[in-house]
């Protein structure tokens, strides 16, 4: 990496931080208003006008500043834009992670901005809209929350682990069987517990901050993981595929942990749930 590259991504980070804060304020205002809610793939997969407006703000600002860059955004993808990651510098955006929480004013909602170059995740910025905390991570430069350095938990023993997960949008009986089966296995390790907060991004931030030892999910998207993966790795943790192989950003599944031992344990327990891929035609 040349010094020019590192300057260039430094500038990207600064702009991302600015726009994340601005977008976060927009979300904070929107949370107080009447919300127009629609469903997407299932009745529990929600979207609001705020999701669209916030994504538009983020993309238009970044596009103006970096006209040659590409964009992958949750609402743009829903509108039919292709979700293919090329070598081009690409922003990967979730304008409101935790839309269901947003609709209910449940205080776990985040703006997530990831950035990849040559298909490598380079930086991540996540703004916790209710707490007004900013998480940032840059490859090789550490991960921070409001300027304080983040470290994952180094616990290796699953019997002392707190594990986080999310349900995903599918609620059919077969999916629920597997989802609950996975959860029961991990609870019965025995682990200290399992928590669900309704935002993959913020759950991954909690992992990066050392408050939990492991995370797994089927059904999330590339824009939910892109930023947080940088944070977790820079905080000393690992992020991988649910099969134990390297992270596949478009695979709609992930395992993350503070230690390899906890990650391996989780991988071994999991039965897969298929949600297709982000980079397939709908």
């Amino acid at each position, binding site marked *: 990496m040349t010094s020019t590259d590192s300057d260039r991504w430094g500038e990207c980070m600064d702009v991302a931080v600015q726009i994340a804060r601005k977008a976060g304020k927009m979300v904070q205002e929107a949370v107080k208003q009447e919300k127009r809610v629609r469903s997407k793939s299932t009745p529990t997969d929600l979207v609001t006008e705020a999701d669209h407006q916030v994504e538009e703000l983020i993309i238009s600002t970044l596009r103006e500043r970096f006209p040659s860059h590409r964009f992958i955004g949750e609402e743009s993808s829903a509108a039919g834009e292709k979700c293919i990651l090329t070598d081009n510098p690409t922003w990967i955006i979730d304008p409101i992670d935790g839309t269901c929480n947003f609709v209910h004013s449940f205080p776990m909602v985040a703006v997530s901005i990831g950035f990849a170059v040559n298909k490598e995740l380079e930086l991540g910025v996540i703004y916790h809209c209710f707490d007004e905390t900013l998480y940032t991570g840059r490859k090789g430069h550490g991960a921070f929350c409001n300027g304080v350095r983040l470290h994952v*938990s180094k616990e290796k023993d699953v019997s002392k682990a*707190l594990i986080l997960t999310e349900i995903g949008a599918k609620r059919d*009986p077969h999916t629920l069987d597997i989802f*609950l089966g996975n959860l029961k296995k991990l609870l019965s390790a025995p*682990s*200290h517990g399992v928590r*669900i907060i309704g935002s993959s991004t913020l759950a991954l931030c*909690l992992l990066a901050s050392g408050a939990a030892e492991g995370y797994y999910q089927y059904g999330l998207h590339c824009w939910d993981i892109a930023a947080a993966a940088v944070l977790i790795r820079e905080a000393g943790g690992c992020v991988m595929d649910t099969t134990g192989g390297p992270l596949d950003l478009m695979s709609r599944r992930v395992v993350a942990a503070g230690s390899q031992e906890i990650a391996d344990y989780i991988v071994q327990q999991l039965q897969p749930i298929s949600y297709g891929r982000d980079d397939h035609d709908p």
Partner: protein
Amino acid sequence: MSDLWQEAMDHAVGVAKKAGEIVRDALQNEMNIMCKSSSVDLVTKTDQKVEQLIIDSVKEKFPTHGFIGEESVAAGQSCLLTDNPTWIVDPVDGTTNFVHGYPFVAVSIGFAVNKMLEFGVVYSCIEDKMYTARRGKGAFCNGQPLQVSDQKDINQSIIATEFGSSRDPEVLDKIFSNMRKIVSLPVHGIRGSGSAAVNMCLVAAGCVEAYYEVGIHCWDIAAAAVIVTEAGGVLMDLEGGPLDLMSRRVLAANNKTIAERICKEIEVHPLVRDDAPIVTK
């Protein structure tokens, strides 16, 4: 006419704040973690220290009052609720969270007279959220009034619940069977903060429509029960009927429609009541 119990409530808020400081300080240091009934039922010196702080301060100011506290009961004290003004305290609700630095840890102080709950104070100390409610005077979080959600449709609800600290396969089967029924309704989602008191405050704040759990204790719910009802919510026993503080189960909801819908799905498994006589061998 001045409120007879306002002084007690002000005291509760003050001691909850002090307790919260102790909890936050303890998070910075090495923790001595002990196990109670199993390897996942945790207690720390902080639980014990905070409870002692509260007991001592209450005894000094209100020497005739009764006290039911999680750690005192664990040490053999009675859990019987009499007509006497009684403080019902969980010094650290969410001990597992506390041990991990996971941000939902609450000091819970409830107060009952003639077996009726008069006020509740729940201090979610990592978030610095002080939830309070005095019977007939509304519920508040950091001074802002609380109001439950107005959602009547269970399919558009978020339900909070926990898996509990039992790892007994039969107990877990029942917990998962109940959870499966709720998720399949369907609901918008399930959430669990890891603290019963915080979950109930989320109902009061309108963030979730309901919270249910089998396995909690009276000290987990006494304070938050007042907060829920003063925010416009309802409390029920999971077998129907009014909340029974010592029954080891709770259902708190934004309204009767949601509460009854959940009650319909949940199967309760029997647990030893908090006020059951202690069997000596």
